[in-house]
Structure formats: C-alpha cells, structure tokens
C-alpha cells in the first residue's frame, strides 16, 4: 500500500521471483561449494602428480567462472531487482534494517570475484601452494557471503524476537540461522559435486573421467546424507504454523515436496550406480539427469522455504501483500483504501464498487493470485463462489485458510472486492443478500456463506447419506474433528437446524435447463461475427482463456461492448467457442 504494484495480471510477480531465484540459487550454491571442489580436485591432481587431473581442474575452473561469474552474479542482482519490483515494502524493510549486513556481503563478493579471476587466469602460472591459497580465499569469501545472506533471509522465515525489537544481531542469528547454514553449506557442496560430475562426463580421457566421476560421486553422496540430516534439524526449529505448512497443510508445498524427494532418490541412484559402482556409466545424459535431480532438490527446498512463510513475506511482521501486521487493526477500522497511496478510489460507493474492488484485488490479492494465468488463478479459485459467498468468505479468509493473509479493510471494502471477483471476473450477479423467511429458504444462503468456498452441496450428499437431522447438526459443531482445515460452524442453534435441513434435502445434481451455447452465440455475437471469423479469433485458445476473454471484451477491443449474458450463458458460450476451436461447426 505504500508502494505501487507492478501489475501483470496473467503472469504474477511470484512466478517471476520463483523463476529467477530457483535458477540463481542453483548456481550461487555451486559458486560456494565449487570453490572447495576445485581446491580438492587440484590437490588430488598435485598429490597424484597427475597433469590430466590438473588439466581437468583448470577446464572445470573455466566452466565454473563462466557459470558463476556471469549467470550467478547477474541473476543475484536479478533477485534483488525482482523482489524490489514485486514486494518493494519487504525489500525496503530488509535493506534498511540489514544494510550493513548486505554491505559486508558486498565486500566478500568483491574478494570472491577477484580471487575467482586470479584462480582461473593464474592456474599453472603461480606456485601451487599460493594458487591453493587463492582457492581457499575464494571459498572462504564465498562461504562468508552465503553465511551473511543466510542470516538475513533466515529472518524472513524465523524472525524470533526480531519481530518485536528489529535488532540487527537478534535477526541475523535467528532461530534457523545455524541449521540453515549447515544445510546450505552441504547442499552447496552437493551441487558442486554434481557440476563436477557433469564436467567429468564431458572429459575425453577415460582414466580422468572415471577418477573424477568417482571423486564427485563420493562428494555428492556424503554431502547428500548431511543435507538430509540437517534438513530435519532445520525442520525442527520452524515455528508451529510454518512446521504445519511444511508437513502438509500447504497445498503448494504438498505439490512440490514429492518432486524434491524424487530428486533426492534419483540423485542417490545415479551417484551410487553410475558414480561409485560403475563410473564408466557417467555419460552426458546421465550427468544431465544428476543435474536435473539436484535442481529438483534445491528448487524443492527453496519453494518450500518461501511457501512456509505464508501468509507472511516476513514472518509475523509483514503479510505477503506488503501490509504490516501491526497496521491491520487501524486499516480495518479506518479503511484500507483511504490509507493506500497508489489507488484512485479512496472510498467505496455503489457507483465504484467494482473499480474499488479491483484496486483492492491488485493491492491485497495479486501478490499471490493471477487473473487468468497459470499460477494460482483467482478465476479458477473462486469459480464456484457467488457474490454472497465471497462476501462472507473474504472476511474469514485467514481463519479458513491460514496460509492466506487476512482481508484488511472495512466490510464495505470487502463487498467491493467480492463485487469485482464475482461481477467483473465471473460475470455473476452482484446482489446484496435478501432477508428470507423460513428454514428451507435460509439453508442455501447459510451454505453459500459458510461452505461454498470449499464445497459444492452435491458433493456432500454421499458424505451425509444415512445421517439424520440431529447427526448432521452435531457434525456441523465438530467439523474440526473431520479435518483440521475446517472450523466448527459458528451459527446459532436455529441456523444449525436450517443448514442441516438444507443439506438433508440436497440431491445429486441433475442437469436441467441446459443452455445451448450456439443460441447464445446467435443472440449475442452474430450481429458482428460469423462462425469462421470467430474460429480464427479463438484458435489455439483454451476454454478457460476464452471464458476469461468473454468477461473483458471491451478491453480486448474498444469497439466491442461487454458480454451481456448471465453466468450460465457465458459458460455455455465458452463451451461453444471451444467446440468450434476443436473443429465443431
């Protein structure tokens, strides 16, 4: 709210951060571990008086220089750029609080660069004792860089008492500092071993290839073991909520962790099978598999670490959308839009409901949700919810899903957000709830407000099959026993009865009143478009994309009016257009 939001609705900032940071950490950890690998590879060459191994080491140093100095250092700057673009408030807080930590890191980065150049360009041109010392200077500088960054970014996940006092050293030596440092040190060495394994696969001299393959595989296996043990130590120091997210409560972590585990397993198999037992199997495709496995391990870890902070970007201090936790109460009473700087609607009225809602969406939801994009698409996430359901859900969002930040603002602002999502994005009716009389009439409304964010009524039919009214009422009071992601229904006794009655009467959905998309097309589109013309326009587009486009026709082309049909008609039209895209009509 203090800073503008870089709004790329279909891309999302989170995707860009993930893309740059995962690739960067894969190289930057190589930059640390690779230093030690080079020292020991050179020592091996010297000890065995093997010029071919020294040649291999020099060649690997060149590869190391090209990868780490160019991609590694520039993508490191890239992370700084992208986090400042996507979350300037958090970046500013960390930069201002830890400026001298970053500055010290810059000093080590400078020494690291100088030492890397001297190491490579003076290979074989200075006495080996001094040359190894240069290698050690490089490695120590690189490791110090890692240690400093580890302290600063660790505070984002485990701030400890820094969250209250903002003291530099308290934050730096945060609860996860040491486990994370050990974990990162060994994952850096493991990645370095994989890069060494890759270099070995490109070596033409068979003896060197086998020797360096085995050398690399030993490194990889030993370090992988320490990575796993220190990973458990790391996990043990996470605060309760973060621990819960890692252990399965976060859908995004649950999706990624199996990939990380697959990476570990695959790496173990490759290094054992085609490293220790049969080093001659280290062919280029096998080495590439090892690299992909290592990337999965590293990527899985980074993704998990990022997601475990949710709903915060800096745990217990700042939510993912840049709102400080300490400001929430004030913003709830005084209004979010009145305090937000980069908005055009400072108040909400009936006239600007959707526009204000869009600004709230951009400022509060876009940090994690795209609009019509692949990553966490808000349209997909809310497709089953009506305006009324959204109004209720938005106010309870953090209670229902811990990993989402609470909605911040007045009730009216919450309605504006619901109006934007339901009305503008889905083309659904935006009507305030009407007072209705009678148990049966209130049941659907209660369901909509309290359950529809996660369930369709029809889906619950089989779960409630055979249960009487009293049993359903009892279940509603103990929903948390069914799943710890649910909370007991908080309505009055009467509302329990009304909701139970509704659930008891719900039957499996029978399709009725089917709307023909072709008819909708005739009624709404044929005054300007024919089928062949439309076919060209929707070619290669997915159904969801077509559906989204129908919600913003006027933005696609100024001359087009907005689609005036209701939600079902829009769905039917999207189906029809998809069918002509696939060769129908």
């Amino acid at each position: 709210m203090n800073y503008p939001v870089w709004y790329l609705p279909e891309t999302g900032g989170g995707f860009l951060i993930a893309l740059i940071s995962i690739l960067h950490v894969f190289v930057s950890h190589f930059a640390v571990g690779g230093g030690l690998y080079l020292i020991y590879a050179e020592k091996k060459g010297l000890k065995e008086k093997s010029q071919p191994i020294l040649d291999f080491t020099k060649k690997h140093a060149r590869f190391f220089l090209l990868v780490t100095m160019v991609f590694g250092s520039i993508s490191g700057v890239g992370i700084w750029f992208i986090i400042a673009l996507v979350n300037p408030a958090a970046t500013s807080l960390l930069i201002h609080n830890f400026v001298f930590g970053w500055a010290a890191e810059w000093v080590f980065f400078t020494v690291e660069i100088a030492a890397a150049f001297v190491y490579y360009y003076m290979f074989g041109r200075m006495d080996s004792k001094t040359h190894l010392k240069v290698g050690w200077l490089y490695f120590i500088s690189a490791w110090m860089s890692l240690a400093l960054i580890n302290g600063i970014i660790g505070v984002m996940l485990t701030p400890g008492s820094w969250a209250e006092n903002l003291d530099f050293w308290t934050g730096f030596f945060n609860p996860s500092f040491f486990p994370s440092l050990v974990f990162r040190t060994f994952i850096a060495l493991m990645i370095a071993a994989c890069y060494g394994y890759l270099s070995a696969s490109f070596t033409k001299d068979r003896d060197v290839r086998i020797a360096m393959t085995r050398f690399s595989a030993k490194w990889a296996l030993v370090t992988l073991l320490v990575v796993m043990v220190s990973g458990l130590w790391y996990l043990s120091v996470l605060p309760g909520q973060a621990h819960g997210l890692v252990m399965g409560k976060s859908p995004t972590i649950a999706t990624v962790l199996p990939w990380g585990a697959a990476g570990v397993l695959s790496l173990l198999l490759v290094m054992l099978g085609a490293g220790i037992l049969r080093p001659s199997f280290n062919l280029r495709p096998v080495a590439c598999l090892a690299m992909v496995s290592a990337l999965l391990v590293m990527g899985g870890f980074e993704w998990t670490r990022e997601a475990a902070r949710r709903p915060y970007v800096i745990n217990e201090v700042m939510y993912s959308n840049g709102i400080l936790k300490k400001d929430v109460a004030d913003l709830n009473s005084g209004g979010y839009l009145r305090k937000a700087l980069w908005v055009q609607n400072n108040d909400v009225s009936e006239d600007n409901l959707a526009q204000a809602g869009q600004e709230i969406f951009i400022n509060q939801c876009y940090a994690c949700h795209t609009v019509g994009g692949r990553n966490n698409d808000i349209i997909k996430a809310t497709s089953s919810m009506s305006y009324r359901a959204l109004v209720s859900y938005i106010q309870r969002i953090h209670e229902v899903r811990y990993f989402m930040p609470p909605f911040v603002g007045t009730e009216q602002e919450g309605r504006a957000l619901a109006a934007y999502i339901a009305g503008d994005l889905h083309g659904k009716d935006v009507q305030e709830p009407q007072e209705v009389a009678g148990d049966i009439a209130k049941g659907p409304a209660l369901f909509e407000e309290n359950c529809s964010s996660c369930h369709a009524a029809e889906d619950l039919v089989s779960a409630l099959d055979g249960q009487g009214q009293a049993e359903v009422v009892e279940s509603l009071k103990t929903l948390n026993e069914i799943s710890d992601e649910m909370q007991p229904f908080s309505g009055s006794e009467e509302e329990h009865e009304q909701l139970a009655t509704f659930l008891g009467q719900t039957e499996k959905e029978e399709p009725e009143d089917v709307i023909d998309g072709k008819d909708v097309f005739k009624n709404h589109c044929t005054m300007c478009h024919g089928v062949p013309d439309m076919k060209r326009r929707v070619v290669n587009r997915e159904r969801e994309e077509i559906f989204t486009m129908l919600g913003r026709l006027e933005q696609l082309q100024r001359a087009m009016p907005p689609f005036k049909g209701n939600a079902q008609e829009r769905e039917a039209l999207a189906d029809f257009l998809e069918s002509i895209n696939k060769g129908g009509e």
Partner: protein
Amino acid sequence: MEPLIIPQPDTIPVSWGWFQFLLLVTFPLHLLAMNAMLGGLAIGIVQHIRGGTVQKQLAHRIAIALPLVIAFVVNFGVAPLLFVQVLYGQFLYSSSVLMGVFWILIVPILIIAYYGAYFYDFRFTQLGSAGPWVAVLAFSLLVVIGFFFSNNMLLMATPENFGGYFSHKSGTLLSFGQPSFWPRFLHMFFGALAIGGLFVALLGRFRKDVNPELAEHAEQVGLNSFLILTSGNILLGFWYLLSLPKELMMLFMGNHIGATSSLCIALLLVAGALFGAWKKRFWLTFYHAVGLVVVMTFMRSWLRSGYLKDVFTLKELQVVPQYSPMIFFFITLVVGIVCLWWLIKKTRDAFLMEAEPD
C-alpha cells in the same frame, strides 16, 4: 494538479551522513569501471574494424580485459545501489515499479552482453571479421542498460510524474520525454567513451615492457579519444545545464555554494585534463579525469536533492540507532582490502616471475 504520491521511508540505523559518504565513495568506482567498459569496448571495436597488426593487438587486449571489467562494473554498482536505496528507497522502489518491465529486462540483457564479452574474448581469433559484430552487439546491449538506468534515475527524482502509474500499471513508464533526459544521457554516454580512452591508454601501459609499440599506440589512441570526446562533451554539459528546470540550474550558477563550487572545480579539472591530453601527459590527464568523475558524483547528488527538496530531505529520515553493524562492516571492509592487496601482490609476483629470463 494531481496530488503527489510519496511513500513513507523506512528508518535507518545510523545518521544519513554515513550513507551519503559511502554512496559518494563507492559510486565513482562504479562510474570509472562503467566508463572503462563502455569506452574501452567502443575503442576496441573501432580498432578491430580498422585493422592493422597493432590495432588488432589493442582490440584483443581490450577484449581480454572486458569480462573482468564487466565483473567489477556490476560489483561496484551493487554498493551505491544499496546506499541509494537506503537514502532514497521510497522514490527508487516506486520509479522502478513504474518502469518494471524495462528495469527487470536489464538482467537478461546484461547476461547476454556479458556472455557476448566472454565469447569475444575467448574466440577473438576464430571469430575473424565477425568478431567486431559480436562486440557491437555487446556494446549496444550495454548502452541499452545505461538508457534504462538513466530513465530510472531521472524518474525517481521527479515524483510529480508518479501519477503516470495509473495508466502504466504493467510497468511501462519511462522518462525520456522529459526535457533534460537526452542531454543528461548523452553527457554521461560521451563522458564514458572519453574516460574509456584513458582506460585503453592504461591498458597499453601494462604491456609496455612486453610490447612497447602497442603501449604507444594505445596511449595515442586513448588520449586522442579523450581529448576529442571531452571537448565535445563540454558542449553537451552546458546543454544539460540549460535543460534543467531554472531553479535547479541556478543551484550551479550561484544559488548553492556547494553545487556552484563543484561546477567550478569540475571546469578547472576538465581544463587540466584537456591540457594533459593535448600535451600527451598521461598521468596528468588521468588524475584530473578521476577527480572530475568524483566531483561529478557530488554534482549529481546536489541535483537529486534539488529535484526532491520540496517533498523530501535526507534530514527527514528517522534514525533508530544501531552502530555495531556499521563497525562490523568497516572491519570487514579493511579485511577485504587486505585480501585484495594480497591477491594483487601475489599476481604481480607471478607475472614478474614469468617475465624473468630462465
């Protein structure tokens, strides 16, 4: 008139003067390295295209040095970018978002340019006549980065343009339409090419014992480039001065003692540097030029605070004192300098050993 949008700054751990000092110390290092990169590469391209033995040798020496120079341009850019974020973060973060698409493009562009530089270096001979074109590509990409930086530095200093966000939410706002943009950019660009001439001359000097002909040629080309480009750049400098809003221009014309003195000192240093280049006295030219770059960073600083003075002054930054991290940084800096000194010494010793006859 649209209301100004000025974000709240975060607190700082020590007085702003420390950060200003660190900014003014580190930024000239970045500028000098950037000038060496851009100007050196431009001269290298011209030498390579012109052909001739010594010209190609010079182009090759420049190609070899280029990756190292780029590494230090980036590295020396990190520190001032850090300190300017501490002092003016609320403006810089905002302007960066406003031109987000271009700002983030700097990263892939720089990676391509950097790999281009390595390619030019490692394949200098094999590339043959295609070599200069690889170098031209790298040079063009680096100029584009400079163009984006200039846009951001001007945009952050002119928050009256921040309202443009509402029509550029996807981060496509640039500031090259402002009257002072082009003279500012061109002044920096030609200044970089000129100082790059001195880098080329210096590079030649490093090879004096091995290849005196190359050293002489490099010095001649470098000093001539500096002389011609700096003479022209004086005119661009005056254009830049006149293009500034009158209130800001007058800072350098008597309304602010520091800014005005800096301009006067800068003009004296220019005169000294031109005299040195004309008389072919390298070190005289070099020291004047380095001094000039340092004074220019002071002038930039006054100009920026002049742009922002109605909405923000550095004195407004709230200090929540914590000095021990700064002491830690200074100790680290001393250790780092000792390490760099040791590396240079050992490298020099190795070179001397190599040069010694068996």
